[in-house]
């Protein structure tokens, strides 16, 4: 007997899925429409124009802020990946009884909230903070290192700390599904350690790396609180510029255009990430 194309469950889920799509898409589509409008003081003119996108393309400030957002995101993805790889491997392959405890501990900082974590970093990195005081007590420095706080260094330390758990979880899932027999086979065939990592472990954990990387990438690109509160005079981000445009400048169309430019680049990154996962799956199948 031929089965119906949609099951009862599918029909029941349909309204929820439709509502979710509508609720997610509607605000974005409104934003997209606004990005083609213009503002004159407090009046929004609905004549369609590409002027806002031309303004972004022609503005060194907006271009560099967008580039800085994605550059920062890439750097933090790289840092979290390097730190998370051994952590995820350890939890997945070396821990048995305390696995869930370790994973819970990993998530504990996330329960404290962004602001608390940021201020904790201030306490550590500030002129009167723990690091400066310790270094002075040890006579390593004569006066506090001012560059520890309110600098790109402080911002990237905090961003790496904040988003590390997401990378660890992505990689941990990949390591959990990694069959140890592949490694045993590679070792039996005489593959040295680095070759086993590069030719077996890395290709088979790429999906976790990409999934974790995309999560971290998106969250860092959209984080403006951490750079604002720890980055000092250089803490401006493209998100805070959008905030200025929507708030004080009442230039919703330009703010929408920048938001959509960011969104388009992020979607491109997602597309590339999905492609990487697909290709690595094919590699895994070949293996």
């Amino acid at each position, binding site marked *: 007997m031929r089965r119906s194309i949609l099951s009862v469950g599918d029909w029941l889920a349909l309204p929820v899925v439709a509502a979710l799509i509508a609720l997610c898409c509607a605000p974005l589509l409104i934003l997209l429409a606004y990005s083609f409008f213009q*503002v004159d*003081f*407090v*009046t929004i003119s609905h004549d369609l124009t590409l002027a806002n996108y031309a303004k972004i393309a022609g*503005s*060194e*400030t907006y271009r*560099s*802020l967008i580039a*800085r957002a994605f550059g920062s995101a890439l750097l933090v993805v790289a840092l979290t990946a390097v730190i998370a790889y051994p952590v995820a491997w350890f939890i997945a392959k070396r821990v048995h009884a305390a696995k869930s405890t370790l994973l819970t501990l990993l998530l504990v900082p996330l329960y404290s909230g962004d602001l608390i974590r940021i201020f904790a970093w201030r306490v550590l990195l*500030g*002129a*009167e903070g723990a690091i400066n005081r310790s270094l002075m007590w040890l006579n390593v420095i004569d006066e506090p290192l*001012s560059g520890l*706080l*309110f600098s790109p260094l402080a911002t990237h330390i905090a961003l790496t700390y904040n988003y590390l758990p997401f990378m660890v979880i992505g990689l941990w899932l990949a390591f959990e599904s990694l069959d140890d027999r592949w490694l045993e086979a590679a070792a039996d065939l005489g593959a040295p350690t680095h070759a086993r990592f590069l030719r077996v472990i890395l290709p088979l954990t790429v999906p976790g790396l990409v999934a974790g990387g995309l999560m971290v990438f998106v969250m860092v690109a959209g984080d403006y609180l951490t750079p*604002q*509160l720890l*980055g*000092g*005079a*250089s*803490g*401006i981000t493209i998100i805070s*510029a959008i905030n*200025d*445009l929507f*708030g*004080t*400048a*009442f*230039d919703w169309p*330009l703010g929408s255009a920048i938001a959509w430019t960011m969104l388009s680049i992020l979607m491109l990154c997602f597309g590339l990430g999905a492609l990487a996962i697909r290709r690595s799956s094919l590699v895994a199948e070949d293996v």
Partner: protein
Amino acid sequence: MLRRDFIKSAMAGTALGALGPAARAIASTDILWMTWENLAKDDYLAPFLDSRDISITKTFIGTDDEQFAKLRAGGASSVDLITPGLDKVEYYTASDLLQPIDFEKVPNAALLYDTFKATSLGKVDGETYGIPFYWGINPIVYRADLMDEEPDWSVFFEGDAYNGKLAMRDYALEGIMIAAMYLGIPEDEMFHMDDKQLAEIKKVLMIQKSKLRTYWNSIGDLTNLFATGEVVCAFSWVPPYYDLKAKGIEMGMAKPKQGVIGWCDTIAVPKGVSGARLDATFELVNYLLGEEYGKMLAVGGPYAQSTSAARDLLTEEEQDKIFIKDLSVMDNFVWKQNPPRYNEWVALWNEVKAS
């Protein structure tokens, strides 16, 4: 359910605080006031509510822009009284959201200080749409124990004694006004600067950025930065000065001769308010400009009302705290205005920060 009723229900929790005795719950007229939390404390409003058959539902704002966005998005029909900045009233009138103030119903408006009577802000064609309500200054606040002398605006642009120890509010309007005052651009030109003047402003703001520890966004954060010694001098609001002095830190407050930024919030009535609600709203406006409310605001705020109603009821110390002991302080004020090219100001400010 009417939109107004829905909003009222949703704000029931907030309203409870204002309603107080059960008798008020059945008040014949309810006023919905969109305002800052510190202006609508229960004890400030109690004398008004106790003697009238009126209740007040309060809805609090976080920023002036948020208030405008709410009204612009259709909220005007559900609100009876709003609290826009004097420089922002123009946004509301240009959007046709307000109705003129009926001065016959606000006798206390006769007590407005001269500077507020004379200002053209908040008015269109001679009609007042936003009546000055309360005001203050945004001075330079500094750690007197860590600075050798009282600073003026030049501390943010010249010398290197305090490099990396200064902070500036992350707000294009005030940041550019300060640079203009430093460059000696007169007030009547300040908000209409041409390209050449804006280029000069950008040049000095770049110098300023190199001297800053950070741009601050919340006054609590700035207070923290003063307390930890990360920042010794900042363009600030007044609270850190009093808060840290109370904690035993030697603080200073400078009002530069080049000009001091004055701020003033108004009270304004949205266009759709009418009938008994309008009468009750104007009754509240009159109360807010009167002596009882003024005294409580001066002591509890501490903020100065825009009228002289409560001035003589305050001690000299209380007057001094809110800058009304010697009113000549106002001679040096530069009131915030809305520059016609404000989008370009914001772009310039972001260019400097992104450099």
